[in-house]
């Protein structure tokens, strides 16, 4: 994948995040629904083991649900893609030191 297609692909990801922030269904997901129907929803832990910075895909200090969701989603896209990008840089460094190429 060249740089141009990566940029286009990431723009598509952000568009999906924007659509999700505007239109995602607030209904419980399949597992939550089953848990409610069959009565074990209350066995879910009240407090998380560690506090997450952006719970429920939102930035607490942005009032608009759309912009809050869009910003949180954009951060998520950046973290997930960034993980692989950093991995690639590390891998490149190692590959070039062992083969002397690049």
């Amino acid at each position: 994948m060249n740089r141009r297609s990566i940029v286009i692909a990431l723009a598509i990801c952000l568009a999906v995040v924007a659509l999700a922030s505007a239109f995602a269904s607030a209904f419980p997901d399949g597992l939550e629904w089953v848990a409610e129907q069959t009565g074990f929803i209350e066995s879910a832990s009240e407090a998380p083991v560690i506090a997450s910075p952006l719970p429920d895909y939102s930035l607490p200090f942005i009032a608009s649900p759309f912009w809050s969701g869009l910003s949180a989603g954009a951060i998520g896209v950046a973290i997930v893609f960034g993980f692989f990008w950093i991995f690639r840089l590390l891998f490149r460094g190692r590959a070039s030191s062992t083969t002397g190429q690049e």
Partner: protein
Amino acid sequence: MHIPDGFLNLPVSGGCALLSAGGLALAIARLKKRFADRLIPVMGVLAAFIFAAQMFNFPVAGGTSGHLMGGVLAAVVVGPMAATLILTVVLIVQCLVFQDGGLIVLGANVFNMAILGTWVGWAIFASIARLGRSTAWRHVGVFFGAWISVVVAATACAGELALSGTVPLRVALPAMAGVHAVIGIGEGIITWLVVAFIGKVKPEMLT
């Protein structure tokens, strides 16, 4: 179907974590030879897309909702082992940053969706595509593989809930498999659409 903490007991969570560690070790070992410079950016883009698509819950009949799991989507493009790593990274970020899916049960979520669902779904896709040997059959394989990946992951989830003593299997299994058989249709359609789109604009990605 991101399991929150509290639904599974510690032995089941621990057992799933061990299974996931084994699956991840296998995936990394199998990938090492193929960890080409070219593959990693594609994995990053797929991971970003799957993360974004997982935010997009679509309504399903009966007041519930579902979103893409993405295991078969990733597997069709980069193979099942790379798909496992992609979904694992997405699940870890969702758990740690967005509080979606519990930390203690992270191993169970990885096992259900990134490993078992993805591998079974990919195997079904590959079998159907190989049997049919045509583009039309490949599409059928993509849809059916994606559908079954969700049903398999939900079935495993039901088993873990039952083993943990949270809910009896005779209650959990039909409910989980039933609702996810419907959500899986969404998975099949989205996966099919995205794979068809990639085939149109970047066919070399699907070889």
